[in-house]
């Protein structure tokens, strides 16, 4: 995907987007996922209501016909081993997954960008300390670290978001630091110094805006990672505890009954894949859109 500066200026974001069908589809899928997450409550079936009479029903377009059925709405994607409607569970799971990943990315971004800016601009001992912490965190597998922390502070929606956030900031810090080191060599930074700007003003007004593109791109890519990590944690039983559904949690349950009920694994799996793929494609699109080589160039 090659997006020239002129095109971007003239056509704006959507003008460029319609010329890139793959990215457009990815945007639509993500939009649908967000709509699903927001309106999950309005789905006629209840995600939590158990009905052992209807356990492991295959996908169908017909409503349960036996007397005393919990739902009069058809189990479009079937039911799980406890007879809960899979469609309703997946919709709710999308909401939880998006929420957890979104907030963990926000936390990671705030921590990472701040430390990256400070590290790159101040340099010296401060830079050394921050970067050694980054190196240490990077040398540990992300999931192993998250497992250790969740095991210590216990599972739960907020805890998972915090754990993911506080382990995911390192890439932000490293990227932003690198950008700061590059940007501070431009003479408009020296100019800002010479007109008497304070360090904080230079960081916020002159350096940060140049790094926004790369931050946004990394945020998108990290969000995809966060959804996978959350699913991994839930799959391992360390994520958001039952009965709240998450995509990883549903998949974990599904493996026990996979040979009897394939649908419990296939549908959430496909949706997880579609969302992550879309987010990654959007990330790539944003990277081209905000091609950072522009800063200070002729």
């Amino acid at each position: 995907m090659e997006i020239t500066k002129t095109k971007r200026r003239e056509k704006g974001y959507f003008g460029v987007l319609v010329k890139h069908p793959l990215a457009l589809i990815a945007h639509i899928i993500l939009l649908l996922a967000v709509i699903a997450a927001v309106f999950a409550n309005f789905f006629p079936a209840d995600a939590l209501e158990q009905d052992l009479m209807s356990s492991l029903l295959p996908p169908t377009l017909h409503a349960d016909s036996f007397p005393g059925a919990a739902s009069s709405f058809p189990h479009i994607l079937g039911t799980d081993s406890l007879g809960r409607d899979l469609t309703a569970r997946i919709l709710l799971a999308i909401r939880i997954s998006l929420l957890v990943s979104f907030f963990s990315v926000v936390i990671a971004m705030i921590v990472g960008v701040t430390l990256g800016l400070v590290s790159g601009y101040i340099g010296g001992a401060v830079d050394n300390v921050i970067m050694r912490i980054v190196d240490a965190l990077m040398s540990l597998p992300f999931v192993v670290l998250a497992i250790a922390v969740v095991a210590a502070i216990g599972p739960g929606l907020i805890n998972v978001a915090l754990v993911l956030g506080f382990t995911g900031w390192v890439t932000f810090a490293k990227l932003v630091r690198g950008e700061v080191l590059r940007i501070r060599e431009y003479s408009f930074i020296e100019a800002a110094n010479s007109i008497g700007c304070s360090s904080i003003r230079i960081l916020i007004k002159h350096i940060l805006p140049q790094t926004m593109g790369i931050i946004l791109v990394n945020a998108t890519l990290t969000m995809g990672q966060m959804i996978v990590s959350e699913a991994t944690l839930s799959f391992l039983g360390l994520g958001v505890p039952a009965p709240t559904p998450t995509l990883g949690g549903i998949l974990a349950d599904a493996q026990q009954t996979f040979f009897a009920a394939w649908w419990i694994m296939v549908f959430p799996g496909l949706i997880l894949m579609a969302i992550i793929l879309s987010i990654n494609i959007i990330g790539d699109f944003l990277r081209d859109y905000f091609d950072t080589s522009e800063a200070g160039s002729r």
Partner: protein
Amino acid sequence: MCEEILSVKDLKTYFNSRTSTFLGKSPSIRAVDGINLSINAGESFGLVGESGCGKSTTGRSILRLIQPTSGSINFAGRDVMTADKKSLRTLRREMQMIFQDPYSSLNPRMRVLDIVAEPLIVHRLAKPSEAATKAKKVLDHCGIPDGSVQRFPREFSGGQRQRIVIARALVTRPRFIVADEPVSALDVSIQAQILNLLQDLRDEYSLTYLFISHDLAIVRTVTNRIAVMYLGKIVEQADTSVFFSGPLHPYSRALLSSVPRETPDEDKKRIILTGNIPSAANPPKGCNFHTRCPLFTEKCKKIAPELIPVSKGHSVACHLALKSSK
């Protein structure tokens, strides 16, 4: 005209070179190695030399954009060298800089008007609305019309960008400006515009310039006094007219004779220097220039000459020039 506005005494700026030698301690680079300057209000003082001679570092050290190693800098009765952060910021209202590369010295994500108004806002000299009005006025003085101030820097050509850089430097009404190669990135037909603008503004805003350049023809046109630097030291200092009618230091002579001739049949006796500029990390003993000097003697290898006045306002750092002028 004779009131001294800037006085620099024995200014030294050393850098630590990154590459360490085998035996651990790396030599420091003596970018500026003991410089004395005295600039009067209203003057345009030229600092000339080849790349790596320390002329830009001198300019930046005077503004303390680079921390000097030692020496004293006195600006209009105030000590710049020991000024704390707060008083340094106040000083910067009055001491400004114009940069070489108009492409990288403007924040690409700020509108021109915001760029020029920023110094006023940083120093709390005006409310945002007032700042915009003042900035527009200065931009107009510098030749950027009112209609284009809401644009981004990338929409302007090199010469126009340099006008914006100049407007930003002038908006706080400074008294002293360091202009670091302000036209060397510009086309010939645009250079003249900017040089004329700088001269007009000097009268209008009663400015004092420290004009740093490698181009002798430009320095001759815009300055009234000149100092030639070689390897971190001033080798000759004189009134511009005196200098161009008869430079005394062998390096100054070689530099002047190296300027390409202006017309094809101009008879030019050229002094071609052999060799390259030595490294500032390891300057030669004695006179810095003796390794390339066509006239050097034994004395030059051992004793570094001092900058000594030979006539009123004309000083040279050369053992031989002293002898010949006496």
